[in-house]
């Protein structure tokens, strides 16, 4: 882990059932120097997370098979101690979602329609925080 202190993993997992979203976000983030992994639903995302251990997860909430919240819960329970950030894309941030997020912690929201610029900014913010956190450790 010590080598990764300075060169923290720039892997980002994007989970969405809409291929266009995957495509555009992938392009935007790759252009900014991130390594992108994509998944089309929660189950797929869970699998990819286990394989790749990304530092940031961008996920849609409404998805077939397994939604974003469920997937996040599963990742937290099974992924071990490695810290990671989550960015959730949603059309509306209602109260129950906010309560859930406060309880769970370390969750950012992006409102739909998604602006790739904003997503990139948020990913960069998460990444720098994680790097700071890792440096402290």
């Amino acid at each position, binding site marked *: 882990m010590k080598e990764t202190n300075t060169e923290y993993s720039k892997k980002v997992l994007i989970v969405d059932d809409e291929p*266009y*979203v995957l495509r555009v976000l992938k*392009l935007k983030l790759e252009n900014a120097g991130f390594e992108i992994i994509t998944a089309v639903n929660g189950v797929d995302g869970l699998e990819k997370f286990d394989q790749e251990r990304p530092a940031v997860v961008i996920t849609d909430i409404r998805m*077939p*098979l397994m939604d974003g919240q469920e997937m996040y819960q599963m990742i937290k329970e099974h992924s071990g101690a490695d810290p990671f950030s989550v960015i959730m894309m949603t059309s509306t941030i209602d109260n129950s979602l906010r309560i859930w997020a406060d309880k769970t912690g370390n969750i950012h929201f992006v409102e*739909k*329609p998604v*602006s790739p610029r904003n997503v990139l900014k948020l990913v960069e913010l998460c990444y720098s925080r994680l790097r700071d956190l890792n440096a402290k450790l």
Partner: protein
Amino acid sequence: MTNFIKSLKQISLFPLKEEKFIQNIGLISIGVSLVIIVLIMSLFVLFTKQNRQKDLISDGVTLTSMVASYSMNELKKDNANKLLEIVNYTGSKSGLVYSIIMDTNQKIIARTGSNYVDNTLIAKRAASSNNHLKQIYKNSLTNHTIYEFFRPIYKNGKKEGTVRLGFSPDINPLFSDNDIRGILVIATLFFSLVPIFYYLVRRSFSSLGSLNNELSNLIEKNEFRKIEVNPEDGVGKLVERFNLVVSSLKDKCKQMSLSYEDSEVANKVLSYEKDRIESVIDNMADGIMVTDSVGSITLVNRTMINMMKFSKQEVLGKTVNACFDNKEILSFIEKNQFYGSVFSQKNLEIVLKQSGGENIVRISYQPLISHEESVMGSIIVAKDITVQKAAQRNQSDFIAHVSHELRTPLNTIKSYVEMLMDDEVNNRETKIDFFNTINDEADRLARLINNLLNISKIEMGSLMINKDLIKTRDFLEDIFKSVESQAISKNIKIELLLPDKLSSLVMDKDQIRIAILNVLSNAIKYTPEDGSITFRAEEDESFIQIDITDTGYGISEEEIPHIFDKFFRSSDEKVKAHTGNGLGLALCRDIIKLHDGKIDVMSNIGQGTQFTLTLPTEDSPRIKNYSTSYHSLVEK
């Protein structure tokens, strides 16, 4: 009224007969007059007898004195006889039956009426009754009562002889001719009075007779007319009063029977109303329970009973605690009963487990307030809101679906445009692809909005269909081309099978296109990769039949009846993995129905599905009835 008459009938054990009554009056008056006549006659007889006795005594005394005033010398044989004849003549009226003049030796000087006298007896009596002026004895011969007068004949203070005169009151007839005539006159008079009396009595009692008649009528026929009263009638006032009494009784009876009938009617109306209200309450879809001021249940309807585990009889009179075993309901009701209006929660939504599964029930509590503003009890209403809740959920699900479906292409458009604006896309081909995607997504958005608009228009019955003559073959080929690329991109083998000639269709091209496209895009969506889809059309008499057959996931038997329902989405995980709003097939069915067609579906889970759309051709007889069937469909 009838009861009153019945009691009258029971009382009148004696049947009054007017004729008999009047007849009796006649007989009585005859009898009375007879008695009066007999009385008068007896009085007359008594009077006559007394008079006769008086006459007899005075004649006896006078005649004996007259004879005794003669001396025996003067009474020589002839003289004595002549004298006695005179005496006899005079005394015969008073009943003189014999006369005797005797000397002192009891030797009869002269005599008359020897038939009546036993000489020896006379002699004997003369000896024993010297000093008596009169004696009465019974003549043994004739059995007559004899009054005998005697007197001594003196000459110079010396008794020379005796005169004896015997009277019998019975000898003369009691009545003289005059007497009889008088009696007859009196009797005739009396008898002639009888009919007058009878008439008077009859007239006096004529009111009684009609009274009797009317009473009979009243008893037997329940009729009573006012009795005509003769002002001279003796019983007139009585009958008049009777009239008054009966008419007032009649009025009272009438009032009573009227009010009785009224109350009967009112009772019937009341009980009918009660039954009606009870059945209304019983048949209400909401459960209703009413308690009194101490919390005992006074009314409960069938719906409420069905929600509880007890029968109506077990529940009435008990408190609410005995009826529900759900703690939430009990505490809700208790709080309301205890705190009243201070407790602000008036509704409780709760899931009740019942025989038919789980139901969502809304329980509301309302205190019963009297006119005096005091609490008389409470009304507890339980409303089954399962269906409403499901509809609400459907509605919000639908809105969520729609907004998601609307947002998805919008999302893509926005992000792609932003990427192009930020000059993030350097590759020319990718750039073109981005522009194409934006274009496609805009189309997708427009299609979705159209679908939504169409379905709401059809639902509200305001969809205008513009019918045109369509070349069927070209039309179907166009549709096929528009979906072919979609299928190929999913590696699905798609086939179009059309006969060389197809009749034209008269229909709204855009609508039918939407209907067929919805089925076709479903087939592509729910057919896994490497599957196949067949798009086939056939003509059969006056119909064109379009079959869309896929090798997709298939629809389960339970779900087939619901696939055309609005908002319905299969619970199959494979189907759920794809986005959809549950509107496509609903819209398709509505459009096909509007064109007098029909849509059928056959499916086997795991093997595939075949939809068959049947549409009438241009010359189909059904086309001619287009307008009517259009309306009937809209009404449906």
